[in-house]
């Protein structure tokens, strides 16, 4: 039997951990977002990211990819302008 000792870089991205989420998921209000990037730094999954687009007040806003979000709520509790709301799953 052949056993591989090495793995291809970054391959865990095929594991979608979004189904770990049980209670809440984040929703970013793009009009409130000031593009400070704190959510990107504090997200344990690293899936908050700048979209490269601007909202009506000219600020580059962030989005998050729920495919991997485990729903910890760190982004919402750290957001300085409270632009992220944790909504109940299934609503």
């Amino acid at each position: 039997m052949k056993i591989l000792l090495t793995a291809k870089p970054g391959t865990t991205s095929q594991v979608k951990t979004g189904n770990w989420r049980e209670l809440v998921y984040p929703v970013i209000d793009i009009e409130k977002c000031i593009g400070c990037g704190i959510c990107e730094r504090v997200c344990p999954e690293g899936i908050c990211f700048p979209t490269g687009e601007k909202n009506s007040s000219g600020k580059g806003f962030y989005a998050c990819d729920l495919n991997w979000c485990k729903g910890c709520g760190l982004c919402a509790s750290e957001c300085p302008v409270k632009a992220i709301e944790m909504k109940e799953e299934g609503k």
Partner: protein
Amino acid sequence: MSNTKNNIKYKAPLSHQLNPGHSACAGCGMIIAARLVMDTAGPNTIVTNATGCSEVTTTQYPMTSFKMPWIHSLFENPAPMASGILAALKVKGLEDKVNVLVVGGDGATFDIGIGLISGMWERGENTLYICYDNEAYQNTGYQSSSSTPFDANTTTTPPGKKSSGSQQLKKDMIGIALAHNLPYVATASVGNTLDVVAKVKKALSIKGPKYLQIYCPCVPGWGIEPKDTMNVARSAVQSGFYPIVEYIDGELVSKKSAQGGSALGGVTKKVSIEEFLKPQKRFKHLFKDENGKLEIAKIQKIADENIEKYKLI
């Protein structure tokens, strides 16, 4: 299901050095620190990793979350492995172009690997040792390590009639590192992400063995809410319970931090130790009776002594 509602048109670019899909708990402090460190160190880095959460969660066979060369060995081995990698880089003439990072938890650093880490420091290898300090063997079920603080409840130090949790004081790893005459020794907390980034950058600009200890709350082990990870990491610093220090060539240095206030300590306003202990289930037994109050006073004394010793305010 809810994916359809939230900005579905944006796909994560996966631009970090650590990909999602790892099995770290929701709100894990260690993985935040790992991402900050790896992003700062960049792709030209070789990482050796001790056994622990940082290894188990990121590399489920046959996958890995890392985009850089990464190698795992047993608890005690990453430091000598880094020495070997440096020797190989030297033969290839690449030793100035590649960063060598050693990552270990507090069990691997404070207990099991300390002899070999001491050897690596004594040889003066050009490595950066990152210790993510979550104050117990959280990966195997919250057994106490020599980093576990006084009075904490772990599965091997349960509180009861005759005991109030762990009776040992936390090992002074910073003092041990300083005794090796390292050019750079520092502590940081994930509660201040910019400080972590700045310290990694600074450490990598210095040649020689470096030591950086990052305070990482553990959600299940400490019994905190996932969303409180940052708050607990910050209140530990603000109360003086976990001193944030930075030594260059053995000198305690002071500078303004990126988030304002003195980075030397990061204590911008002092909070009481209760504010730090209250959200954690591992200290819950201290809030039950009168004896607990006496124990809290002892922990407050430890924090006050830290503030005085490292001149945090």
